[in-house]
């Protein structure tokens, strides 16, 4: 029953308010009236939109997928992903009863409003902190992992260490506690979606965004590494993009270690998805902060291509790939990614930790420079390319993959291009046929086989050998015809030429497709 009193506004005045047609004084008076009159409050809301619209707005715009735990996005058919889910519908029996009918239960002094997500380690809840009148996120260790006292202690210790990291790109931890025997920790609630949800929604990101997100992630990592903390589980699901400002917030620090021991001793199976794990981690070797950098490389790969770099049917197969194989070249999946960015990802993806960037801080700085150059090309200089230590992996694969194309290209080239090819040949572009020390890599056909695991691998061998021979002949002929300086002094022009060759190759590929 609504009570209509004298000062209640007529519906048409409410309508006028919504259409911005009241004077400032009339508005002030109306707003004051709305402080107390519940009848007018409801009338205004129904004038603005009907009941379905109001509930739609909540469902459509809250990107946190609150509610149940369902498989993110639906159906990328990848069984390794299901390793990430402990339960489809988590049991919330551990919550204490609450007086508030809108809430699910209570945990400590927090009123639990709903479930944000579940992972291999536990459940993340959205809760309201009555004392401080703010929303928080609570991560509760999964009950089956909390049975051993040592696991619980370790969980608490890790959370304490993580709480010590204070940085704009790390989700702050407010408290660590235990309720009904279950350890949990309380973090700031970050409204927004995770990078994983974002990639599900939109696919690969634009280059400036990739740089921005990677740079902020690296900065957060640097802060944690400075405290001696290694994240161990960097992946898109743990990188939150704060609503509105799209600021990166890394979550779930240092907790993977808690899980490894608890779950490994129980069943010998690694919990959680290993898709972004570093090889040394996968092999159970000693892990240091550089493992996070490998994972960052995998995250950047996912941002460039829309999918993780290492995929397979089972978790074990994924780990094998991580340790032994190179992912499919980024430019084959997304040709719009510039090579300097591909190089950065490849450097982060080096199997040997000593070959990667050595600190998150230097990665953040480099990405920052690139971003600044992109935004102000005329005033900020482009950062120098990374020095290549190894053979030139991806374009060579695509090159050899189309030996027919290669033959066509050769036959239509003039002497100038032949010269380019010759130089390219001699400096290791086609490294398997050269003796240069840094090119003790795979032969082209083996590289093709590695990348394309397919029955057609054998077909390429004969073609490849034929083209190799042709190039060898050309190069020999060219260098006999001219006075040639030692190779080292060519390095500058060589990278220029390599560029041109790549460019041509891409053009030809595009036309051929």
């Amino acid at each position: 029953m609504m009570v209509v009193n004298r000062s209640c506004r007529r519906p048409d005045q409410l309508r006028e308010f919504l259409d911005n047609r009241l004077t400032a004084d009339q508005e002030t008076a109306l707003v004051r009236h709305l402080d107390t009159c519940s009848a007018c409050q409801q009338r205004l809301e129904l004038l603005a939109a009907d009941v379905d619209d109001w509930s739609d707005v909540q469902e459509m715009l809250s990107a946190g997928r609150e509610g149940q735990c369902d498989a993110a996005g639906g159906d990328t058919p990848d069984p390794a992903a299901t390793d990430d889910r402990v339960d489809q519908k988590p049991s919330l029996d551990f919550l204490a009863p609450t007086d508030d009918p809108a809430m699910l239960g209570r945990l400590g002094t927090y009123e639990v409003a709903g479930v944000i997500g579940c992972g291999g380690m536990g459940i993340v809840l959205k809760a309201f902190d009555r004392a401080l009148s703010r929303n928080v996120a609570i991560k509760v260790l999964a009950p089956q992992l909390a049975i051993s006292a040592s696991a619980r202690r370790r969980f608490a210790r890790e959370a304490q260490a993580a709480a010590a990291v204070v940085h704009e790109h790390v989700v702050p931890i407010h408290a660590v506690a235990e309720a009904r025997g279950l350890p949990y920790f309380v973090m700031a609630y970050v409204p927004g979606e995770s990078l994983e949800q974002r990639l599900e929604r939109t696919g690969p990101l634009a280059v400036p965004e990739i740089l921005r997100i990677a740079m902020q992630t690296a900065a957060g990592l640097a802060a944690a590494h400075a405290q001696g903390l290694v994240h161990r589980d960097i992946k898109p699901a743990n990188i939150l993009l704060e609503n509105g400002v799209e600021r990166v917030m890394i979550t779930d620090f240092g907790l993977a270690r808690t899980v490894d021991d608890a779950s490994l001793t129980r069943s010998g199976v690694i919990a959680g998805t290993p898709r972004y794990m570093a090889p040394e981690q996968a092999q159970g070797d000693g892990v240091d902060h550089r493992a996070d950098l490998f994972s960052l490389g995998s995250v950047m790969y996912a941002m460039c291509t829309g999918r993780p770099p290492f995929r397979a049917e089972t978790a074990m197969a994924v780990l094998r790939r991580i340790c032994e194989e190179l992912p499919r070249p980024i430019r084959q999946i997304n040709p719009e990614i510039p090579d300097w960015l591909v190089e950065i990802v490849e450097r982060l993806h080096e199997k040997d930790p000593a070959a990667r960037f050595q600190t998150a801080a230097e990665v953040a700085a480099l990405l920052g420079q690139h971003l600044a150059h992109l935004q102000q090309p005329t005033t900020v200089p482009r950062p120098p390319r990374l020095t290549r230590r190894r053979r030139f992996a991806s374009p060579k694969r695509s090159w050899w993959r189309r030996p027919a194309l290669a033959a066509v290209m050769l036959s239509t080239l003039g002497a100038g291009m032949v010269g380019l090819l010759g130089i390219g040949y001699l400096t290791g572009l086609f490294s398997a046929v050269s003796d240069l020390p840094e090119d003790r890599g795979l032969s082209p056909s083996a590289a093709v086989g590695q990348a394309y695991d397919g029955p057609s691998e054998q077909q390429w061998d004969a073609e490849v050998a034929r083209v190799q021979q042709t190039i060898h002949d050309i190069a020999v002929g060219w260098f006999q015809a001219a006075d040639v300086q030692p190779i080292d002094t060519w390095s500058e022009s060589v990278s220029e030429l390599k560029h041109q060759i790549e460019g041509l190759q891409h053009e030809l590929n595009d036309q051929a497709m």
Partner: protein
Amino acid sequence: MNEIPDTRHSLLVRLCDRGDQQAWAELLEIYEPLIYRLARRKGLQHADAEELTQEAFVAVAAAIERWDPDPNRGSFRGWLFRIARNMTVNYLSRTRPENVGVGGTGFRHLLEQQPAASAEEATFFGREYRREAFRWAAGEIRGEFQESTWKAFWATAVEGHNIKETAHALEMSVGAVYAARSRIMARLKRKLQQLEGR
């Protein structure tokens, strides 16, 4: 997304009305992520999903060539969004998404069909479309409001917080929070109606 080759120029010539050009642009903004996402859900890889999205727009652009500006048929904008919806719903009801074909011919066929999807697919599409449209509309109108007004709306209408507590947290009066959320909601609704030409 890359410019749709060859259709862009003729399209602009065809759509001489600025309002029509805007309708086309907004259709792209909403349907591009939407179709991509639906295609991924159907199991397509990224590159294939992207290609499919392109084909869909090529088909719609071709349909525009045949658009007949007859006042009895309603606005261009309304027509445009209707055919895009029909086409996408029909696409969803196919079991083999890759059979749609290249060059947009498959999509054109879908355009000409009467919507024949099951109620379930239509509902599913409806929700996904609405989700995308809401996101788009919220982004479009956000700049029209002050920070505190927007926060009041977001906290109570989207995140479901208690109105009194939000008012307290944002240092606004309760009346102001009610005013903010209703006003923004009304604006959102109007924006959505404008989108489809209603």
